């Protein structure tokens, strides 16, 4: 560790100087870089939308949006971030029959929110179901192609540390209750009859005859404005104000409000009218509110559910609060109304960038809530001797002991005690943290975990069966995952041997890589070392090449023999595995098998689309799941206090989000954990 750092700093000059380079390397090493660098953009959030954007979009994002990225992707910047533009790409020119599935988009101001994440999960699940349906119903769908596409789908949600999400180890997202979608288009049904909805639901045009003073033609969007957003916002462009009028109303209304009236005039409807610039709520008498609007003006309409207020914008300018005390238990649909023939309005429900910087408003709302949170005093209860620091010591210490990090727990206990001793100058102050007593179980669990993390699944299975014979019997899914993991580890070993037998010939590309060294070297110490090795190789290796290969010929043969032996063994093991679980009806088991077996199809699986399966990071979830199962079998709680703290926080915040309260603006995992 020290050695690497000194190399890096010597070779790269100001090694840790600029943050953006952190982003172009493998991301795991950058995970703690926020503690090192002053201007890292490496808090980059995962890009959800498209596969091809996944790897490449990340550095672009970070470079282009250094400041905005740290709070949440793309939020706060006047332009949409590049990565998220993939979200827009999908939304156009899609065949009607597939429309609902593929026109999924996330409004910019909701990106990174918990609510958007949930809807994305639903969307992905729907795509997966469709895919299953298709693959089950098309006779010539080879198993290879379907399974590789399934991997791509799963890769849409990468962790930026690249270790948590894995198709085999991760349970399918659990969707507990239906999640209300956001509006996506004008409704084909919920409209005045002579109003035409065009362009995939984006445009509404009045095609009837001129309306009398009282009447109008209105249309509502397909879904109500969801409270979970906290703030919901949409925009409408006046494409044409029709012949000689601009009696246009933009706003929102309840589901039962008559569509023969301009919004704002009926109870439970609210709108901003273009002809007089007035705001109307539930009545025909308006209040002076903003400027008039007409052709080519962009009118925005938003509700802040937390404060129960609504506002409008015109051409990107905020016009102030229009309505207060909105009822919290009603559903409000985006609604527009018009009167003159030919009047045409085009809606933007988030498919395109907004003209008003709504992202900034949402970010400010969130910042205010986060400030409230950081100001909350964790006052120690006077009747107890604990304070926040002691509490945190206990929390972390208990986690380490609970999860079997024996050595860490010991070191932590020592350091905390040292700290307490240094502080207690008289030596009689209560040492807050008492070292966890170590039990045999903790050590056994640590052994098992270590074995899995080293990739030695057999050892883990042996230990588990010896110490906790019931665990694998009772947790068949974990047993299955371990077996799969073993298969993957065997393939890994084959790959490694294969690479040694057939070392990739260093093409000229490599030397350019080391020429471009100064640009890329400090991205990651691993990269760096590789390149260093290459440089050395170029130096010493070239003249001695022949001798080297002579010397190692025997060895090579040896290795090749080993490789073919191992390959046979792997295939045999795979067949056994398949036999054992072939008749398992569970979908996730089937898919896991499919994906795992697809790995064999590639000669060098590490370059295949399935390479992520081979990552050593995939060992972690298996190890943790087994550890939890052992804890449960011992009658202990499967989760430590720290985990419960997280669970409670998440649950409490989502409780505060359901009705559009302050929780809507918080995404616990993204805001704190990542």
């Amino acid at each position: 560790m020290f050695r690497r750092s000194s190399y890096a700093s010597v070779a790269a000059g100001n090694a840790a100087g600029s943050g953006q380079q952190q982003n172009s390397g493998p991301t795991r090493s950058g995970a703690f870089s926020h503690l090192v660098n002053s201007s890292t953009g490496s808090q980059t959030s995962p890009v959800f939308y498209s596969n091809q954007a996944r790897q490449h979009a990340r550095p672009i994002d970070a470079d282009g949006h250094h400041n905005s990225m740290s709070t949440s992707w793309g939020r706060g910047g006047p332009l949409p971030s590049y990565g998220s533009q993939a979200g827009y790409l999908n939304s156009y020119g899609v065949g009607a029959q597939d429309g609902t599935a593929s026109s999924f988009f996330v409004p910019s101001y909701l990106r990174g929110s918990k609510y958007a994440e949930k809807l994305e999960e639903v969307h992905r699940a729907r795509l997966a179901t469709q895919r299953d349906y298709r693959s089950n119903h098309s006779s010539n769908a080879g198993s290879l192609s379907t399974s590789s596409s399934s991997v791509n789908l799963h890769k849409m949600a990468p962790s930026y540390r690249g270790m948590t999400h894995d198709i085999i180890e991760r349970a399918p997202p659990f969707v507990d209750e239906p999640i209300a979608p956001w509006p996506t288009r004008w409704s084909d049904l919920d409209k005045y009859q002579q109003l035409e909805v065009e362009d995939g639901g984006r445009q509404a045009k009045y095609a009837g005859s001129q309306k009398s003073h009282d009447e109008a033609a209105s249309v509502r969007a397909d879904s109500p404005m969801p409270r979970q957003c906290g703030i919901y916002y949409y925009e409408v462009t006046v494409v044409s104000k029709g012949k000689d009028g601009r009696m246009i109303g933009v706003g929102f209304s309840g589901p039962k409000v008559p569509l023969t009236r301009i919004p704002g005039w009926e109870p439970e409807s609210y709108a901003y009218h273009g002809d007089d610039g007035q705001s109307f709520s539930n009545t025909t008498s308006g209040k002076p509110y903003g400027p008039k609007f007409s052709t080519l003006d962009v009118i925005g309409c938003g509700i802040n559910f937390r404060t129960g207020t609504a506002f409008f914008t015109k051409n990107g300018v905020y016009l102030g609060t229009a309505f207060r005390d909105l009822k919290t238990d009603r559903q409000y649909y985006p609604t527009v109304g018009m009167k003159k023939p030919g009047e045409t309005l085009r809606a933007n429900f988030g498919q395109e960038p907004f003209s008003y910087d709504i992202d900034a408003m949402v970010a400010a709302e969130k910042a205010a809530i986060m400030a409230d949170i950081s100001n909350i005093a964790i006052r120690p209860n006077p009747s107890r001797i604990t304070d926040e620091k002691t509490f945190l010591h206990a929390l972390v210490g208990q986690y380490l002991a609970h999860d079997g990090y024996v050595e860490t727990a010991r070191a932590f206990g020592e350091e905390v005690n040292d700290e307490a001793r240094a502080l207690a100058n008289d030596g009689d102050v209560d040492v807050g943290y008492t070292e966890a007593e170590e039990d045999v179980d903790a050590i056994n669990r640590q052994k098992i975990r270590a074995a899995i993390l080293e990739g030695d699944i057999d050892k883990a299975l042996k230990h588990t069966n010896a110490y906790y014979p019931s665990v694998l019997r009772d947790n068949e899914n974990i047993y299955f995952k371990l077996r799969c993991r073993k298969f993957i580890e065997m393939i890994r070993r084959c790959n490694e041997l294969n690479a040694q037998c057939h070392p990739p010939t260093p093409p000229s590309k490599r030397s350019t890589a080391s020429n471009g060294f100064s640009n890329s070297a400090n991205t990651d110490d691993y990269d760096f070392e590789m390149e260093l090795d290459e440089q050395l190789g170029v130096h010493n290796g070239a003249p001695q090449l022949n001798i080297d290969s002579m010397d190692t010929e025997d060895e090579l043969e040896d290795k090749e023999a080993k490789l073919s032996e191992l390959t046979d063994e792997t295939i045999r093991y795979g067949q056994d595995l398949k036999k054992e679980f072939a008749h398992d009806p569970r979908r996730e088991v089937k898919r896991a098998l499919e994906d795992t077996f697809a790995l064999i199809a590639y000669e060098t699986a590490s370059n295949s689309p399935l390479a992520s399966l081979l990552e050593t990071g995939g060992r972690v979830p298996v190890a943790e799941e087994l550890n939890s199962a052992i804890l449960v079998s011992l009658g202990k709680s499967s989760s430590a206090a720290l985990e419960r703290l997280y669970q409670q926080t998440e649950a409490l915040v989502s409780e505060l989000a359901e009705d559009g309260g302050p929780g809507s603006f918080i995404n616990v995992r993204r805001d704190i954990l990542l």
Partner: protein
Amino acid sequence: MSSSTVSVSAATPTQHPFQMKIDMIKPSKAEINFVVMDYLISEGYPRAAQKFAKEANLQLPYDQQDGIHSRVEIRNAIHAGDIDTAINKINDMNPQILDTDPALHFALLRLQLIELIRTCTATANADITPALNFASAQLAPRAATNSGFLKDLELTMSLLIFLPSENLQPQLDELLKPGLRRSVADRVNEALLLSSNKRGEARVRQLVRMRAWAEETARHQGKDLPPALPLGLQVSPGADGVMDDAMVP
């Protein structure tokens, strides 16, 4: 420790619906581990961080070592009352921190004054001149600019009158307790972290705070919650297991 983990469901035969919502949330171990590592590094537990990197198969940021060790040294110096050393080391790390944060600088100097007073008054007829000199040279000019500083300085100086004494007023007694050193050390650590990155506070602290805020807000809004949300953490034998109510203001 093992007795501290209580099964959630075992105690209550009928579960509160909110408890089920809690149980449905499955935190990823890798992410929790990340939070723990973040805590060990930002709060300065280098040995534990190293062990944890090994045991949990995490990567330690390679040039973290220097920073964490300096921060630990500074913390230890403050804890031991050696403020001079601490200030020097802080300036070695980043000379601008104290210049840009007068309150922090003042807090450190006041701590130094307290230590001086402590030594000056250790014996009945010791010389208090060093403390007086230090106060007038270092603290008085700063106190003149800020009424809060002035108040703190006055309070601190009154120690000279009362010490040595067994029965100080609580306000004065606080000044002599290790808690003050600890809180100043924490503030220094936070400032050092902030000066090298954006997040000054360990994630787990934010999590604790967010949980406290969320529970308070939710109860205030009359959400249907169980009367208590225990973490199952026993802080110390005397504290009968519940830390949660100590977290709610």
